[in-house]
């Protein structure tokens, strides 16, 4: 287990790293950036998995499954559509 304090520190540092890196993304790639980060926010799938510790048909497990469905729409859809878009960006001589 990680302490709450350590997590808060991680969160703040990650925000700064995010700002540094993402401000360098050119406007041309802002839409793929959004769909790509959509996919990354599907990381909630890890949390969703942890919500399903057994196979009993309880409400908590079913909520976990709903979370997995929503998150995997994000993950699969997000990565695939981002790749589909990035494939279209071509250079002059291609």
């Amino acid at each position, binding site marked *: 287990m990680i302490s709450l304090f350590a997590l808060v520190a991680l969160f703040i540092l990650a925000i700064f790293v995010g700002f540094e890196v993402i401000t360098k993304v050119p406007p041309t790639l802002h839409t793929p950036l959004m769909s790509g980060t959509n996919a990354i926010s599907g990381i909630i799938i890890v949390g969703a998995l942890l919500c399903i510790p057994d196979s009993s048909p309880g409400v908590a497990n079913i909520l976990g499954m709903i979370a997995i469905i929503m998150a*995997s729409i994000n993950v699969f859809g997000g990565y695939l559509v981002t790749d589909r878009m990035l494939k279209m960006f071509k250079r002059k001589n291609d």
Partner: protein
Amino acid sequence: MIDTIINSVYLFAAVLFIFAIKGLTHVKTARRGNFLSALAMFIAIVATVVKMQISGQIGWGFIIAGFVIGGAMGAIVSQKVKMTAMPQMVAIFNGMGGGASVAVAASYFLRTNELGVVLGVSDSITTIIGVIIGAVTLTGSFIAFSKLQGIIKGKPILFPGNNILNIVLFLVVLVLSVLIVFGIGDSLLLFFILVCVALLLGILLVTPIGGADMPVVISLLNSYSGLAAAAAGFILKNSVLVISGALVGASGIILTRIMCKAMNRSLTNVLFGGFGQKEEGKKDTSEYENVKSCEADEAAIILDNADSVIFVPGYGLAVAQAQHAVKELADLLKKKGKKVAYAIHPVAGRMPGHMNVLLAEANVPYEHLHDLDSINPEFKNTDVVIIIGANDVVNPAATKEKSSPIYGMPILNTHEARTVIVIKRSLSAGFAGIKNKLFEHTNTLMFFEDGKAAVKKIVQEFKEL
């Protein structure tokens, strides 16, 4: 021991996510970046499943069912969606992220409640924050989707007392949160009410916002979906959730700021729901005078005599599906040795970078797409500018008239070019509802026609020269 290994793997995945986003800073490395991001996601999922399997706490049935259903839906949407519909898709995906966070927080809350575990203050607070952000993101995104898709009208829906109701609902959320944190009353019932109120709040926060402001809204909701994931990370004490959630949160905030700047709105104005209402300012809606118009043949001759041409596409171009016709004209011009470029305003599409994707789809090389700052110094040395389906973003009033409602908005300085050809069906106003003096300039020619038809006619005339 096993926890240490798993946590190290999570950390590795988080670092990989950062490298992945770094890949997105160049077109050349972007696809690899996206792949790295998917790899990081895969690693994080496998690590979690391994951990659960080792501890013997894993409900495979639900997990596999969830992956199959969600994965199939995501895959189908990703292949079917039209590039013009990308904003709607991102909006709905934002909602999915928020919805998943609510479900995770609610599942966690229910389970601890069933087991009779009393949550500590910090655990309760993080759970509640996760639920609130997630719920607002879920319903807010659905409203944004409906507006972009045209299911509900794009105009701001503002009933009397809307803002007061929002404040009241927000206070209710606060009171409920305090009661839950301190374990006063039936916490399960209170939690359920909290979810419902937060869902309602998400609806009411987005309905008053006009369709033209949706780029700001989806950028902001993008940020929220990341923050909701981070909040779930705090609940479950999971580092990879916190780090990746923070990255997405930061990304959304940056894009929100860019959109706000491009639309001449402050972030506070956005955050407190005051937008959608037009700012005060004298609206110039007087009649147009001395407007000069032209036809395709004249436009073709002007283009033939030019050495440099800049296209300025607006959303009207995408609506008319004119990007392929424009590409054809640009290719013809290039063949004759003319310099061709595209000037893309940040709000040219319906979301950040949307126009670039639409032009990329039409095989326009990305090196020809220029943003506001890099292209603006070029206009004064340019022979012809062709504006298609753009209005407010080329209105010189934004730089010249202090009383104008769009004063201060960054615009493309097309009026500095030697000749400006504006392809537009009529002289109707843009989103800002004001007159565009560019249309009266002595060096401006209006070509009254649908975007696609107009460009095709010019192509035809140009070929016959």
